[in-house]
C-alpha cells in the first residue's frame, strides 16, 4: 500500500486554541476513510489541512508527495489531484451545471472542448443529472447540487477526494442519492476521506474509521469493530448519543 496523505506530528492553533494536537496519521491510496466525532472536535479542520485550505503550525504534512508545510510547495499542484466536496456545495453561481464541471479542467488542465464535453456529460449521467446540464445551481435542490459538486471534483480526475460533511446540509430524503454517488466514487478506487455524521456510510462503505475528539485521533480501526466494540469511553459516549437520537 502506498501512502498518499501523511501527517507527522502535526499541530494547528487558532490563536491560543489548540485545534489539532500532534496528529500522526497515514492514509493509503485507495482507502475510504471516514472521520467521525462530536461537533467542534476538529474533524473539519483536519480535513481542510489536507488540501491546504487551513495551514498547519507544526509538524510535517505530505500529500501526494508534496510537503504542505514547505513554503516553496505550489499548492495548486496538489489541489489538481486532491478534490474537495463541501457541506454547502460551493458551486459557482455564475456558471451552469456543465460550466461548473468544465471550468477547472478547461483553465487548469487545458482540456479540449470536445474531450471536456464528453467527460462532463459522462459524469452527469453517472450522477443522474444529465438533463440538468444547462441549468444554474440555484435552480437545483441541495441533493442535486451536491451531486454536481462531486461530478465537478471527479472531472479533474483526482487521486483523492475530501468530503467535508457532504450530507449535513441536506434534507433527509436527499441524503441517499448523494451517498449512492459517493459509493460509486469509492468503487472506482479513488481515495476518499469523509467527515460525516452518516454512520450507515461509515459502516458500510468506508474501510477505515477514525474517531476524532478534542484535536486527537482517539480510535483508528475497521468500522465494524469500532461500532461493535468501541475502545474509548469518549467513543462509547458518542455512539450512545447517536444511537438514542
Amino acid at each position, binding site marked *: 500500500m502506498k501512502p498518499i496523505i501523511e501527517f507527522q506530528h502535526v499541530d494547528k492553533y487558532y490563536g491560543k486554541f489548540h485545534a489539532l494536537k500532534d496528529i500522526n496519521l497515514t492514509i493509503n491510496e485507495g482507502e475510504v476513510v471516514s472521520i467521525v466525532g462530536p461537533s467542534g472536535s476538529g474533524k473539519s479542520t483536519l480535513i481542510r489541512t489536507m*488540501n491546504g*485550505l487551513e495551514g498547519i503550525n507544526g509538524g510535517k504534512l505530505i500529500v501526494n508527495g508534496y510537503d504542505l508545510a514547505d513554503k516553496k510547495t505550489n499548492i*495548486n499542484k496538489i*489541489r*489538481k489531484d*486532491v*478534490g*474537495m466536496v*463541501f457541506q*454547502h*456545495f*460551493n*458551486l*459557482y*453561481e*455564475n*456558471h451552469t451545471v456543465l460550466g461548473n464541471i468544465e*471550468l*477547472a479542467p478547461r*483553465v*487548469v*488542465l487545458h482540456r479540449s472542448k470536445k474531450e471536456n464535453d464528453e467527460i462532463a456529460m459522462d459524469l452527469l449521467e453517472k450522477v443522474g443529472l444529465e438533463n440538468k446540464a444547462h441549468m444554474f445551481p440555484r435552480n437545483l435542490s441541495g441533493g442535486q447540487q451536491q451531486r454536481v*459538486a462531486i461530478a*465537478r*471534483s471527479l472531472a*479533474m480526475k483526482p487521486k483523492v477526494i475530501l468530503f467535508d460533511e457532504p450530507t449535513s446540509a441536506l434534507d433527509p430524503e436527499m441524503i441517499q442519492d448523494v451517498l449512492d454517488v459517493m459509493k460509486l466514487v469509492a468503487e472506482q478506487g479513488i481515495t476518499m476521506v469523509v467527515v460525516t455524521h452518516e454512520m450507515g456510510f461509515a459502516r458500510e462503505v468506508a474501510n477505515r474509521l477514525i474517531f476524532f475528539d478534542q484535536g486527537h485521533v482517539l480510535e483508528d480501526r475497521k468500522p465494524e469493530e469500532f461500532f461493535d466494540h468501541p475502545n474509548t469511553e469518549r467513543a462509547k459516549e458518542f455512539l450512545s448519543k447517536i444511537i438514542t437520537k
Partner: protein
Amino acid sequence: MWSLLVNNWQTFLIGFWNTIWCSILALVFSLIIGSGFAILETMPNKFWRGVARVYIEIFRNIPLLVIAMIFYLVIPQFWVKMNGFTAGTIGLTLYTSAFISETVRSGIQSVGDGQMEGARSNGMTYWQAMRYVILPQAFKIVIPPLGNQFVNLIKNSSVLAFVAGFDLMYQGDVIASTTFQTIPTYIIVGIFYLILTLPLSYYMQYLERK
C-alpha cells in the same frame, strides 16, 4: 431662451462635447483603476491591501476641486504641462476611482467565501478564481451602485469649469457673462446635463429590475 440657444449653439455644443468626452474618459479609466485597487484591497497580502487603503483614503477624502487644482496648477510647475481639460479629467478620474474601488470591493466581499474555496480546491489559482468565479459575480452585484457613481461622475465633470476645461459649465459661464441672460443660460446648461444623466439613471433602474 430659444434665441439664446440658437445664437450660442456652437459655444454650447463645444461644452456639451467636452463634458461627454471628459465623462467617457474618466468613466473608463476610473473603472479600470478603481477595480484594480478593489482587487488589491481584497488580496490576502497585507502590503497590497495597505497600498490600496492609502490610495482610496487620500482620493476619497480630498475635495474634487482641490485634486483638479493640484493637477492644473501644482503639477505643471514641477513636472509636465497640461491644459485644463486634461488636468480636470485626471482629477475626476482619480477622485471617482476611489469611490468605484469601494463599491467594487464591497461587491467582491459580498460573494461568499465558499466560492473562492470551491474554486481553489478545484485546482484554480487565486487569479483564475478571481477572473472566472468571483469578479463576474461581484460586478453583477455592483451594477446599480456603479450606475450611481457614473451619474455622479457626469455631474462632477462640471469641475472642469474651474480649471478652464471648456466643458458645459464653463461655456455656460462664458455665455452668461457675455449675454447677461443668466437664468435661461443655466436652465439650458441644466437641460444638457439631464440629457446625459436621465437616460443613464433610467437604464440603471431597468438593469436593476432585470
